[in-house]
């Protein structure tokens, strides 16, 4: 059970925000929470990831995001269009699925572990239906200091509705050094 707890914590945090904004009017619950290297090691090592893979994983910044569409319209999740930037406006690079796949290919990470990793990531694109939750990690090249997220969510099935926009300031990757 002691081994299981940190594993569950990684995903449960999508439901219980460590740092979050609730956009009640827009009908969207949103939480975002940086992961510590210790949490990443506890989770992925327990799923069999080798030390070489863990080195690559813990060198990156993992943010666990939880979203619930409480509204009555479709909300589009497209993290590739989100902007992460340092406080002076420099972009923070997101590491996408293809890049992780290439890294894991080089490290000969087994397919099962790659699948698990994939399911712990936020989907690349999702038309969130009314009442639908989604959770997972967004990964970044760890910036040295605090940074912000500027996220935009198109609405309605054909993206024709007014977008929901939010900014989260003061994010910090626990493993990064200023």
């Amino acid at each position, binding site marked *: 059970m002691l081994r*299981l707890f940190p*594993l*569950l914590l*990684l*995903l*449960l945090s*999508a*439901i219980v925000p460590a740092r979050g904004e609730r956009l009640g009017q827009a009908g969207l619950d949103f939480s975002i929470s940086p992961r510590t290297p210790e949490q990443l090691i506890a*989770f992925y090592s327990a*799923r*069999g990831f080798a030390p070489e893979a863990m080195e690559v994983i813990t060198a990156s910044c993992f943010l666990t995001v939880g979203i619930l569409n409480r509204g009555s319209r479709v909300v589009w999740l497209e993290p590739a269009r989100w902007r992460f930037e340092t406080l002076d406006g420099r972009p923070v690079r997101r590491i996408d699925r293809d890049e992780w796949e290439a890294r894991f290919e080089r490290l000969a990470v*087994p*397919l*099962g*572990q*790659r*699948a*698990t990793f*994939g*399911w*712990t990531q936020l*989907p690349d694109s*999702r038309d969130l*239906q*009314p*009442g*639908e*939750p*989604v*959770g*997972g990690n967004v990964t970044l090249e760890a910036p040295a200091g605090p940074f912000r997220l500027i996220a935009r969510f198109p609405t309605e099935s054909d993206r024709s509705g007014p977008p929901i926009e939010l900014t989260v300031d003061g994010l910090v990757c626990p493993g990064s050094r200023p």
Partner: protein
Amino acid sequence: MRGLWLVLLCAAMAVHAAEPPPGLMRLDGRPAPALVLPDLDGRTVDLATLRGRWVMVHFWASWCGPCRREMPTLVSVLHTHPPERLTLLLVNTAENEDDVFAFLASVAPELSTLLDRDGQVTARWQPRGLPSTFLVDPEGRLRYLALGGRDWSAPAYRAFLRGLTTP
């Protein structure tokens, strides 16, 4: 043979009649992807052999918090629907037998699961996340998808499943 046609006809009528409760999304009826996987005892289960009945295909993993909460409520599906009308197939995604066995023993000892060891079958089904539950009709077509986890023992879901599976 005539009985089978009657079952299929009733199922088709049920698909059109049943209005899904919140959180269940209607699908377009495309054929379900292949699903041939071993269970915890090493026996191979093939979805294609289950034609003529509804099948709930539930994808899960032990590290997923919502899966842990939803799993015990799936037991009620076993208890309230005879398997010749509704069969529950759990598919564990990319975990080893020890972890799966320990999880089920502590959370839902009555349930068994299929093992998708490398996660490739799950990937072909393209669930929207874990957990995900597909309802496959007696003709092997995808009819509904549950968005995230839920309490399957709640009256709305029980009534919906009863409506689908009762001739």
